[in-house]
């Protein structure tokens, strides 16, 4: 891991209708980590990711990507939204959705060509979805749709990947396939940040973790801070008992 900082979150506060969802978050994410964001429902995990991506405007604080605001750095960041955030009945194919990942590098008006198509096909192959490239997206299973989203992020060839619950509603095979790709990304020096729900798999999948519950509870290497103390602080009492079940 290099000493470079990928993302700096400074005094970030986000509120919906005057109710704080994120409160005074300070976060430094080093380059090259594979980090889980964990916390109970309503802890603001997705909001944190969306604030980093400038989709949600904070009422206070700032976010820097490699030392600069997001607007100047968007080409370095890829985003995998929650599967439920789009309408899967939209008339388009798997390949076309993956191609959308290339639109950022194209900019306005310019159209995707052979180069973009080739990149999209490669990304589809990487996630094991090449044979489904011409399928209409509503005809894909939940796990396949998640892989399409992952391929769309891969095609952006970014330095930072932000993923909102990529394992939600996918079967064990897909989960394995996705985590392998994430580990490959880390090996290639990319920074990967994942909103994650399954606490059991945190030590196995990730090397960095952030505990979040409106406020930041802790952030750091999994081996140092993934302990009962922080789990209890984040999820409330008796977490030790419930995680062992």
């Amino acid at each position, binding site marked *: 891991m290099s000493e470079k900082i990928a993302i700096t979150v400074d005094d970030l506060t986000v509120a919906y209708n005057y109710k704080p969802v994120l409160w005074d978050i300070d976060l430094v994410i080093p380059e090259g980590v594979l980090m889980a964001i964990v916390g109970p429902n309503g802890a603001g995990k997705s909001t944190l990711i969306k604030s980093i991506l400038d989709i949600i405007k904070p009422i206070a604080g700032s976010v820097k990507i490699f030392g600069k605001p997001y607007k100047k750095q968007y080409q370095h960041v890829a*985003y995998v939204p929650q599967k439920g955030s*789009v309408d899967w009945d939209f008339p388009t194919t798997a390949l076309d959705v993956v191609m959308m990942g290339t639109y950022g590098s194209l900019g306005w008006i310019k159209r995707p060509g052979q180069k973009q198509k080739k990149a999209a096909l490669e990304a589809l192959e990487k996630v094991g979805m090449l044979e489904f490239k011409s399928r209409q997206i509503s005809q894909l299973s939940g796990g396949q749709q998640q892989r399409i989203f992952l391929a769309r992020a891969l095609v952006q060839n970014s330095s930072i990947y932000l993923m909102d619950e990529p394992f939600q509603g996918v079967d064990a095979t897909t989960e394995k396939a996705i985590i392998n790709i994430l580990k490959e990304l880390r090996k290639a020096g990319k920074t990967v940040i994942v909103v994650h729900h399954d606490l059991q798999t945190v030590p196995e999948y990730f090397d960095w973790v952030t505990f979040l519950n409106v406020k930041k509870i802790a952030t750091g290497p999994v081996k140092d801070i993934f302990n009962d103390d922080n789990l209890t602080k984040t999820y409330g009492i008796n977490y030790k008992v419930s995680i062992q079940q």
Partner: protein
Amino acid sequence: MTSVQIEIQLIACLVAMACAIPGTFLVLRKMAMISDAISHSILPGIVVGFFLTENLNSPWLILLAAVTGVITVILVEFIQKTGLVKEDTAIGLVFPALFSIGVILIAKNANDVHLDVDAVLLGELAFAPFDRLEISGVDVGPKSLWVIGSILLITLTLLITFFKELKLSTFDKGLATTLGFSPVIIHYGLMATASVTTVGAFDAVGAILVVALMIAPAAMAYLLTTDLKKMLVLSVLFGMISALIGYWVAHWLDASIAGSITTVLGVLFLMVYLFAPGKGLISVLYKQRRQQIEVHLLTFLLHLQNHEEESERHVNHLNEHINWGKVRSKSVLDLALKNNMISINNDIISLTAKGKTFTTEAIDYIITNKNAAIEEMKDRFFLFRG
């Protein structure tokens, strides 16, 4: 056909085409009702524009009215954002208010001019050819034709130029934002286009038909294709076809052209809704029926696997014990035989090797409910296909 007839049909076709393009995106964005709101609330814009320009086809009037359309959208979104009412309620609050302002303005001031509420709601295509455009004394055709033709040209140019951006922001607004495109600009661009088209079309076909021409062709196309480009082409074609058929129905019935076109759109939609392959009602019912038989087959196979004794495996047993009627028993047996899952000897049914494997895997799927298990089965067996 007289030249007037050709001109009317040409105007109707151009209006239909110009409406179908923004309409397709409104349908995909689940904003169909916004077109209704826009079409009504541009009325005060048209009235004020008419007082200022005294010309129903002036570009200034069209722009002014289109601005009212965009204001409608902004107001609806503003009310919706307060979180006190839902979007459909907000639409229902905004457009009648604006429309009524237009109605009052007409009643108070425009009694002596060519602008009345009937014309606004229903339009009068039949009169469109009488309002001619003359350039240095030469008649170049009806004004409406030029107005809607220009609007169509602009819409097409915008569509081709920003197709990628429109598609991306319609499908995934979040991604559009993170990739550096501004979905807000695209959103209001689309709303402005829809407003301009509505104003341009509305003199010819009226506020109500504009809505039908925007939504119905797109809704039909949506049921027929899974490709956005094809959906756009189909929408445009459906709009044109309805316009042409509608014109001749009106001619034959001696009725309102706008009303006839709308009726044709309704009838065409009904046909597509019933008969569209895949998404149509009949196709869906057929699929449900087929799935029902397949589930029955599975029940039957499970029964065979659970019972070794011959008495439980007799053909008649299907009717007696499992309590199925003759027709259903026969379709289930036929399906099982066709797929080589059972063999029948002296009316005693046995599972074949293939039938046994299938049953075991099916149970496995039902118990674990894992997508991975079903994925393979889809290809090898007929059951559970998408």
